[in-house]
């Protein structure tokens, strides 16, 4: 121990140490005390996209979530949602998804059904029934690639983020616009049409692989 003192640990350093400890500790305590007394103020509920956002950030920062919430920006990408009425069954999203969490099965619309199948809101004629449009929300990583490639902009992320579940199965969202029975009927109809007019090559709808996560 004594050799250490010989190395230059002097008495003045000892007292300077004590002095600086006291002053810096006091400064720190002053800061926390200022925050303690500033606790009468609360941060406001303005969203980041509102002009007065940074005027409302003084005081307690806590947001009591289930009672109050700061709005999610409009660009927020959370729950994936498909507006199936606008879906043309092009399967671009299924291909683009880096993790294959979208499963789509399509059936070609027979000629007489084109009217029934209808048009998208953009006025485009839909040519496929989409009996299966499953999104496994539990797998989705909200990257937004699928929404970017969607030609009709029917697939998009909503701002809803709070949707936890007790069961894993509930997280597979089915958006398909046909029930199973309907889908069978349509398939049968398509077969009949193909038989009647063999000119266009019979091209059964490519079956997408089921992407069950569980």
């Amino acid at each position, binding site marked *: 121990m004594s050799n250490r003192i010989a190395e230059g640990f002097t008495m003045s350093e000892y007292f300077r140490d004590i002095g600086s400890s006291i002053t810096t*500790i006091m*400064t720190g305590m002053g800061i926390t005390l200022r925050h303690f007394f500033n606790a009468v103020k609360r941060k406001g509920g303005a969203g980041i996209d509102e002009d007065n*956002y940074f005027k409302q950030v003084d005081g307690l920062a806590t947001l009591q979530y289930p009672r109050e919430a700061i709005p*999610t920006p409009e*660009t927020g990408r959370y729950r994936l949602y498909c507006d199936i009425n606008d879906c043309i069954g092009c399967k671009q999203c299924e291909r683009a998804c880096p993790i294959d969490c979208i499963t789509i099965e399509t059936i070609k619309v027979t000629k007489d059904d084109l009217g029934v199948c209808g048009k998208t809101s953009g006025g485009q004629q839909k040519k496929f029934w989409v009996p299966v449009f499953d999104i496994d929300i539990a797998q989705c990583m*909200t*990257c*937004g690639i699928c929404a970017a490639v969607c030609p009709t902009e029917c697939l998009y992320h909503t701002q809803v983020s709070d949707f936890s579940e007790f069961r894993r199965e509930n997280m597979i969202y089915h958006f398909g616009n046909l029930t199973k029975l309907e889908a069978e009927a349509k398939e049968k109809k398509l077969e009949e049409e193909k038989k009647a007019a063999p000119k266009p090559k019979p091209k059964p709808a490519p079956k997408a692989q089921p992407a069950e996560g569980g």
Partner: protein
Amino acid sequence: MQELGKSEQSSLRVTPQGKGRVLIEKDLSSEEMVLNMGPQHPSTHGVLRLECKTDGEVVIEAEPYLGYLHRCFEKYAETVDYPGVVPFVDRMDYLASMNNDLAYCIAVEKLLDIEIPRRVEFIRVLVSELNRIASHLVAIGTYAIDLGAFTPFLFCFRDREHLLGLLEWASGARMLYNYILIGGVAEDLPKGFIERTREFVSYFRPKAVELQKLLTENEIFVKRTRGVGMMPADVAINYGWSGPMLRGSGVEWDLRKIDGYSVYPELDFSVCVPDGKFSDIGDSLSRHLVRAMEMEESLKIIEQCLDMMPGEEGFNPRAAIPKRIRPKAGEVYGRAENPRGELGFYIQSDGKSTSPLRCKARSSCFVNLSAMKELSMGQLIPDLVAIIGSIDIVLGEVDR
């Protein structure tokens, strides 16, 4: 001050032996104990596991074990196409996704040889500097927690929340953005973003000062970190350190200056190196100081970006994104300055497929952590915690 630290070490029968090595004097007979720290431990910043051989409070040797978060990034990069890799790159260093994306996109763009619109470049720099501040705030905050101060951590996270709000507003997600794409950005900045960012800068400056007073200048904090985990510059380079770690050892090396990618050559900022007055060059405190100083530099860069950003008339952020990304055959090593150091991507393309043949991520944390064994030799357990904190590891990037 440093002599004081030494004298304290000597009381624990540890004497320095040359370069950072120590010898534990066996004046009392004691047994070694193997202490398993992690993978679930409050101070290992995730799932790092350290197997420490200890003699009382002294760690004789700490062997890091990785792989508890090995998420097969490189395998994934070989199976998905080039733009599809970006979300996975995000998830590597999840504290600085924008910077990760930038590094990856720079590598692929180098291979594709495409020109990027100027506004896109500014947006990229802007968001990645914002993210750099957010990342450093987490680093500083968790470092405070490691050393037992809880309040600075919460102040850091409170300010980080504003940054995340800004980035969410621009990109749509809070942490993992998928915003910087190959050849562009996903969306233009929303209206009002620039003003809000300016407000943030003026809001954050006093907060940074407060943080400095509360934490960095605190004598206990200085005592805990000064002279702990010394790393001389040449050894640091040999270990491949980069970023704040290397700058903490006194090497003025910043890829933003050295490589001058994106619009960084046009911007005025300095490379932060500790001056050795407040800290001993190469210790944990220096590394912490570099991070604290870099936040200020980032604020400067942000201000300049906001001033210099070209107008948004007729601007399409996706204009330069190639329809089908299929680079010609070749290999490339592209890199950028991450908040944790050099993040490089070695990409090998065969010119035929739309996915890389090989995509190796040279992650800065992985390399920085490799010196852990040497740094930890002969330290006390509390110092070990201080050293891990100063390396600022993100296990997602270490294990990929």
